[in-house]
């Protein structure tokens, strides 16, 4: 059986001058939490939007392969894609405050997606919405269904977004930094909720984040993105124990680990900034910031396997 989501050599450009994603590949298996990590602007969100075909105007995607449950997404027209979105594949966003339509009630927005994709009555859709609101930890679902987004806090709105995404029992849920805009205490609640829902419903979850703490807690598998490429991908334990790409190593050094780190030891950092990469760029995107870079890094970047299921993009030997 094919994987839930397969992305191979995805390229996304905006109007020719910049390449947001340059040949990124990743695979999400059924029922797995796959974390996509990397710093701001590395192309994580654009990758997710390209998969959903939700790129902003002017965005253009190409790929060698882009398939969902074995179905080729590149061959689907707008209508075919709309049939999948919100149905078998759903997405939640970074901005819970603005992601709900201010003019409609929670209930109307939640039932709408189900009535669009499934042949059910309004009654059934309302019951399902109330049930899901309860499930994402919202008390008094009946009251909330009649309320407008502005009457809810950010944490509640993100819970509503999650519940709305689950209305049609999707196989894949893409969560684009769902906790970034929330208070720290609420962040933990939302993450626990996502992890629990993922387990209970057997969801494939593609979780985009820049927080390695989140990754360590919830991910089965991690893909590290840098400048539009997936530079390393491995099972979570494997990646934390044996990072191969210099960028991944640098990233892990930036995270303090209680007990392992001495108080007076400075926290790691990666010198330099993410380069602006246009079309026709060759070689490794990290070479200007990498302590191991040599002349060959400007031309070829080999794709290597360190262990089964652990791939990375670097000339350094496994």
């Amino acid at each position, binding site marked *: 059986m094919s994987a839930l989501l397969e992305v191979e050599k995805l390229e996304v450009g905006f109007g020719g001058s910049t390449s947001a994603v340059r040949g990124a590949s990743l695979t999400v298996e059924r029922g797995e939490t796959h974390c996509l990590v990397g710093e701001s602007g590395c192309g994580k969100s654009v990758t997710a939007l390209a998969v*959903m075909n*939700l790129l*902003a105007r002017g965005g253009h995607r190409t790929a060698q392969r882009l398939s969902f449950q074995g179905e080729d997404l590149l061959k689907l027209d*707008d209508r075919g*894609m*709309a*049939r*999948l*979105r*919100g*149905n078998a594949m*759903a*997405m939640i*966003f970074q*901005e819970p405050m*603005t*992601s*709900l*339509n*201010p*003019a*409609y009630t929670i209930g109307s927005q939640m039932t*709408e*997606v189900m009535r*669009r*994709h499934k042949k059910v009555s309004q009654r059934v859709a309302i019951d399902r919405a109330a049930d899901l609101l309860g499930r994402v930890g919202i008390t008094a679902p009946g009251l909330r269904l009649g309320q*407008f987004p*502005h*009457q809810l806090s950010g944490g509640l709105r993100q819970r509503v*977004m999650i519940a*709305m995404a689950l209305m049609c029992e999707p196989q894949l849920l893409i969560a684009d930094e769902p906790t970034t805009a929330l208070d720290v205490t609420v962040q933990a609640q939302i993450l626990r909720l996502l992890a629990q829902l993922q387990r209970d419903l057997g969801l494939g979850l593609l979780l985009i984040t820049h927080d390695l703490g989140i990754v360590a807690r919830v991910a089965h598998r991690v893909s590290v993105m840098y400048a539009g490429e997936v530079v390393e991908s491995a099972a979570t334990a494997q990646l934390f124990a044996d990072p191969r790409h210099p960028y991944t190593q640098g990233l892990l050094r930036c995270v303090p680990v209680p007990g392992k780190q001495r108080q007076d030891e400075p926290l790691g950092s990666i010198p330099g900034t993410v380069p602006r990469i246009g079309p026709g760029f060759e070689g490794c995107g990290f070479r200007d910031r990498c302590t191991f870079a040599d002349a060959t890094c400007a031309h070829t970047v080999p794709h290597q396997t360190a262990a089964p299921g652990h791939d990375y993009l670097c000339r350094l030997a496994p």
Partner: protein
Amino acid sequence: MLRFLFRRLIVALLVAATVMTLAFVLTRLSGDLAISIAGPNATAADIEAVRKAYGLDRPVLTQFFDWVGRAVTGDLGNSYFFQTRVSTLIAERMPVTLTLGLTGLSLALLISIPMGILAAVRENTNFDRAVQMVALIGQAMPSFWLGLLLMIIFGLTLGWLPISGTGSWEHFVMPGIVLSFSAVPALTRLTRAGMIQAMSSDYIRTARAKGLSRASILLKHALRNAAIPVVAIAAVQLGFMLGGSIVIEQVFALHGVGFLAWESIAKNDFPVVQAVVLVLAVIYVALTMVSDLLNAVLDPRLRA
């Protein structure tokens, strides 16, 4: 909400009071009313008689408070020229003006909302630029000139529509079109800007992520939010149209309130002039309040 309404009501009353004062002062500033009423051949004795008969010999303040006191109870006085009650005159003429205004507004909305949506969807295409150009021309074209142009083409050359009078609905087509032209540019631009803003918002991305149909995304999710300022402005535009129909009623010889105002100004029938100004101002203030109410109905955030 009730407090909001109450505050709006107070402001509306203040505006009405200001307008009453202005209407009164301006008619007095236009010259000695007794002389103009008495006519060019009147003797000094005639003028004095007129002055006495119409109470113009009293102190100005007394005249003012007398007028205000009556107006508040609905008594707008008598017309010097028509020799009937001003309120009756206005009531007779109002239906024509209201029909014209509502026709103009409906046409304006029917034209500008679809044009604004299409221009927004095709932002920066030739269609979008064409719409904006038409809007610009519409705004720059004087309404009397457009009225005469339509009359020549559809009334005289083609003979499709009557050019004057109020006999049938056909009589309101051309004046309605001309009147709508004053509102189309603003409403089109407002719809276009609102739609462009809505379409780039996060909740539209959510609607797309939900796999909703294009029609639902555009009309249910985007237009609903883009329409809030459009509806509010439309109510105010209706006020402009009712007041601004003076020129068009003139051109098409529609005997509405605007026509009455023009006649009365020409004949120095100042109780009618004052009353028309007052009535139009009160309607305008009322429509502004309606606009606020519509805003609150359409935007749940204002209802709290």
